[in-house]
Each structure stands twice: as C-alpha cells, then as structure tokens.
C-alpha cells in the first residue's frame, strides 16, 4: 500500500508538470474534458490539431507503457448499462460545469480559483454519494 502512495505522488507530479507546460508554453489550461469536448462538438476548431495532438499523446504513452511493462487491469465494471450511464453523466456533467478533475481540480485549485474549489467539492460529493448508493445500498458496483 505504501508503494501506491509513492507512485501516486510521482505520477501526480508528472500530471502537474504536464499542466505547467500546457500553461507556460501553449498558454492554455490543461482540462481533459474541455479538450475532448472541443473536438466532439466542434466548438474548438481553431485549435483542432493542437487538441488532437494532446489526445494522441495522452493515449499513446500509456499504450507504449503497456507494451513495455504489460497490460494493467482497469477493473472497470463488466455491466455495460452501468458503464453507459456513467459515461453519459461524466460527459454531460463536465461540459455543463466547464471542467473536470484536471481543469477544475488540478489547474483551478492550484490558483485558488473559487470556481475550481466549488466544482471539486461538488464532484467529490457526487462521487462519494454515488459509491455509497450504488455500492453499499444497491450493490451494482
């Protein structure tokens, strides 16, 4: 368990460095939902190639890690209706709120943005209640 914290912290530093590069070089906030959403609904065509390159790097480096170190298990629930509902909620929710864990969480909290902090409080609340209800009360996950 102790190794998990160390890997978590080291990985976290890398995520923060990625966000720092994106801000200081590209002049942008590194928000995964904003980048994906801008591609999906065509609202960010001006930065389309930049967004696609970001997503390419995001998918390709873990793929390379998998080829070298072996395939990790994501332990995603095999119940596909649950996966679909969760995906719809994550997609619609992050776009409504204009941000997710990376944009509001990492980039927002680090500059003490009130919006980022409020968003983080509410998605943690939603997540905690979701696990409580669907795991402990209903038992589907």
């Amino acid at each position, binding site marked *: 368990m102790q190794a998990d914290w160390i890997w*978590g912290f080291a*990985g976290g530093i890398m995520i923060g460095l990625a966000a720092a590069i994106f801000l200081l070089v590209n002049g942008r906030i590194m928000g995964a939902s904003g980048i994906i959403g801008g591609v999906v609904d065509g609202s960010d065509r001006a930065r389309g190639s930049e967004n696609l390159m970001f997503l390419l790097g*995001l998918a390709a*480096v873990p793929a390379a890690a998998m080829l070298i170190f072996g395939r990790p298990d994501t332990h995603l629930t095999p119940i596909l209706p649950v996966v679909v509902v969760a995906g719809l909620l994550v997609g619609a929710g992050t776009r409504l709120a204009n941000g997710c864990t990376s944009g509001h969480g990492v980039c927002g909290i680090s500059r003490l943005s009130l919006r980022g902090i409020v968003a983080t409080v509410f998605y943690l609340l*939603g997540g905690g209640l979701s696990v409580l209800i669907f795991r402990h009360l209903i038992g589907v996950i």
Partner: protein
Amino acid sequence: MGRNIFSLIAGGLFGLGLHLSGMTDTTKVQGWLDIFGSWDPTLAFVLGGAILPMAVAWRVAARMQRSTLGIDFPVPPAPKIGHNLVIGSFLFGAGWGLAGLCPGPAVASLSYGGTGGIVFLLAMMAGMYGAPALRVRLDRLAA
C-alpha cells in the same frame, strides 16, 4: 508547429502520470470515494502532487506577458458560481463514482481498457455532445 509538439508532449506526460499513479485503475478511484468502505488515499497524493508544480507555474505565468510561444494566457472566468457549475459537477461526480473513470484516464486507458473502456468513452462523448441542449433546459428552469 511548436504548439502541436508541446501539446503532444503535455498530453504524453499527462498520460504517463495518470498511468503510473494508478488513476486508470477504477478500483483506486472508487476506493478514494468510498469513505464508508475500505478507503484508499492514493488519489489525494496524486492531486497533491499535481497541484505543486502547477501552483509554481501560475506564479511564473503571473510574471510573464504571454506564453513562451507568444500566446495570450487564458482570461480567468468571472468568479460566478452558477447552477451549471454546481449541477454539472455533481452529475460528473455521480458518473465518476459509478465507473471510476474521469475524462483524462478514459482516454489514457484506451489501449488497455477493453470493450468497456471504449463503451465508456463513446457514452462520454455522447454526453458531451448533448450537454449544450441540457444547459439550455437548465438555464430555462433557473430563469
């Protein structure tokens, strides 16, 4: 050109960080949210680790006119806490807890997430596509 290269580098580093920190493992995310079960603190270390370099980056950016590629920094949004921010974040959290995936890790685990991972990604994109229509309805209700 420079923008594309550094975007690729940032995306790759983000992916590596998510992969190594275990954030593509849904049990670690759900474990963090499961305060009434066997609580897993890993995510707090990930978030804390990520906030540190970014807090420095914001201070550096405050001393710069533009980014190193000459791009204007994003204007901070008005500090307004609207219903969309609160409702959207709550809905996102509910989905995040249900599957244990948020947008970044959903893309990062594309190569090894199997069918379920792809189904999640497609559903998430559909949700994103439908969000503007949902926003119009919520705005009408709030007005």
